[in-house]
């Protein structure tokens, strides 16, 4: 047993981080906000070219031929960078919807716990749906996730994708959670009050420590679920990652004080996206009920 990532996996993660830092840095992020979350098609094609969507498609079908462990490492980086768009749905559609693997098509899904669907206006297809349904735009809480109210025509055939969707979404949440720890720690080390950096105060220090603990536990759960693909581990990964991202962003906002409550700080972007993802591919309630049922099935040595 060696649970640590292999050198190839580390290199892959580092490569994606570099790519995103160059192609989707803070200026691009704020430009996306100003554009109301409209997708940058050039960026989408570049992500496709880098293999983000075709990562798990077999090589003989034009994919990269890697597995879930590699996919969660890549999605963790996408979450860290707050990369917008229906990344999970398009990734799941690779090989099934023409153009998804290459990033020439944008594919969304009825993955929310309700009648809303994200990025419908930019979408070329909806996973498991044909034709593309019509929808009414809804003002979205997350400036990077435009929402439409729409009815699935074909009954939203997303059940087959639910577990993988939940796991990849959890990986995005973990990336965001780890990023908010970094943002909070950096701010706490720079911002001075009462003659010293606020990070020297235990109250602030303990907020940051708890953020890291939640993120690290969630990250391990996500990695383990990627390796085993076990349903209960996927549910646990989603549950813990949602919580790490949500509470991490809130604590990060708290550490930033009044600055954290402004539009200029990126913290709210992490929090709002985490809210969206917590509703995608399965909620906390669903995960907890599933994990409870699983307990009854476990063999118990008295």
């Amino acid at each position, binding site marked *: *047993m*060696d*649970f*640590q*990532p*292999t050198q190839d*996996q580390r290199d892959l993660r580092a490569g994606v981080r570099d790519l995103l830092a160059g192609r989707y840095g803070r200026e691009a992020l704020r430009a996306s906000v100003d554009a109301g979350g409209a997708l940058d098609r050039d960026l989408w094609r570049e992500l496709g070219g880098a293999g983000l969507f075709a990562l798990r498609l077999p090589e003989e079908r034009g994919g990269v031929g890697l597995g879930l*462990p590699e996919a969660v490492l890549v999605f963790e980086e996408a979450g860290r960078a707050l990369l917008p768009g229906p990344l999970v749905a398009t990734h799941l559609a690779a090989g099934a919807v023409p153009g998804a693997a290459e990033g020439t098509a944008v594919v969304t899904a009825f993955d929310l716990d309700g009648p809303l669907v994200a990025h419908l206006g930019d979408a070329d297809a909806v996973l498991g749906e044909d034709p593309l349904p019509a929808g009414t735009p809804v003002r979205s809480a997350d400036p990077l996730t435009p929402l439409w109210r729409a009815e699935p025509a074909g009954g939203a055939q997303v059940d087959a994708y639910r577990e993988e969707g939940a796991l990849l979404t959890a990986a995005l949440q973990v990336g965001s959670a780890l990023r908010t*720890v970094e943002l909070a*720690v950096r701010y*706490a*080390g720079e911002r001075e009050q009462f003659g*010293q*950096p606020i*990070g*020297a*105060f*235990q109250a*602030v*220090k*303990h907020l*940051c*420590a*708890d953020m*890291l*603990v*939640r993120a*690290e*536990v*969630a990250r*391990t*759960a996500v*990695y*383990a679920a*990627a*390796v*085993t693909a076990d349903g*209960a*581990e996927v*549910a*646990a*990964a989603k*549950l*813990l990652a949602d919580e790490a991202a949500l509470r991490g962003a809130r604590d990060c906002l708290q550490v930033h004080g009044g600055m954290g409550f402004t539009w200029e700080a990126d913290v709210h972007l992490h929090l709002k996206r985490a809210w969206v993802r917590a509703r995608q591919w399965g909620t906390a*309630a669903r*995960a*907890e*009920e*599933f*994990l*409870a*049922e*699983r*307990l*009854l099935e*476990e063999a*118990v*040595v*008295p």
Partner: protein
Amino acid sequence: MDLTYTEEERDFRARLREWLGKTLPELPARPSPDDWPGRRAYDLGWQRRLHDAGYAGLHWPVDAGGRGATPTQHLIFLEETERAGAPYVGANFVGLLHAGPTIAAEGTAGQRARWLPPVLRGDEVWCQGFSEPGAGSDLASLRTRAVRDGDAYVVTGSKIWTSHAEVADWCELLVRTDPQAPKHRGISWLAMPMDAPGITVRPLRTLAGSAEFAEVFLDEVRIPVANRVGEENDGWRVTMVTLSFERGTAFVGEVVACRRTLALLARTAKANGRWDDPVLRRTLGRLNGEFGALWRLTQWNVSEAQRSGGVPGTGGSVFKLAYSHARQELYDAAAEVLGADSLSLEEEWTLDRLSSLSYTIAAGTSQIQRNIVAERILGLPKGR
């Protein structure tokens, strides 16, 4: 990221499982928790069986008398013994998990030869003389003083929260050997024989009602200078070695026990109708997810230690923080399952609930662990 076990590791597990299946039914009945001499005999008997079967000091280096097993094999050992319901390390805790590894890492050849074999064979019990009434989490502010007199230290002071003090043969003792030095620099680590004149042990009753640990009073106790492990006034560094072992591996087996408890709780709730309460059901489901993840975190930390050569890192503090709180939530959930019966001390889960209150305090409080995570992992500035 590979969670599969090698053929060698699977073979190790299979042989251990077979041995446990054969050995556990032969064990005598467990003594009551308050019967310290009985517990000592029981725990040492278990240690002797482990020794004779070649499982003693599994994770210790070979030149310290151990098996030199990989961290993964140690993990398998803890998992299998807990799963089979084997005795907990008990009175051997300090010897096997604190003092032993410290002597193995920092002791002279003579000290290793004197103290390590009896721990592995199950002949001697150690206790831990670190905490003091006035020191608490600020361990380095300890005041028990040792004055050099010829070839001995004369030690006066008192220690507290000392588990197994009444039945221990040795105590790993922190003393102040230089009162003028900065507080972290004037400390030394001594092995104190518990039968030396001048030692008084007074049992302390915990909130769970049991005499779980003791106060130890030291009145001009003479301890040979040869019993000092590490240099004089270098005891703080030696202690940090000990504490890294404590946080690194000491709680690993308990995660398995918690998962078993959780599954039993679910069955009990199903049987008594409490399962129909969605709030309780969801709490149990959440705990299932948390303990599953904590088990994976254990494997993660063990893999990391294996790559870095076996010394546990600061990941232990992350684990301890998450684990100690989850464990308390587990027993709060048990109380919900039991309902009014949770007020009865006849229920084992009630006693476990009371005991679990120590988890966020013992071995470094959650507040101290958060400081460690914030300062040593995240690099935040030190507070005043």
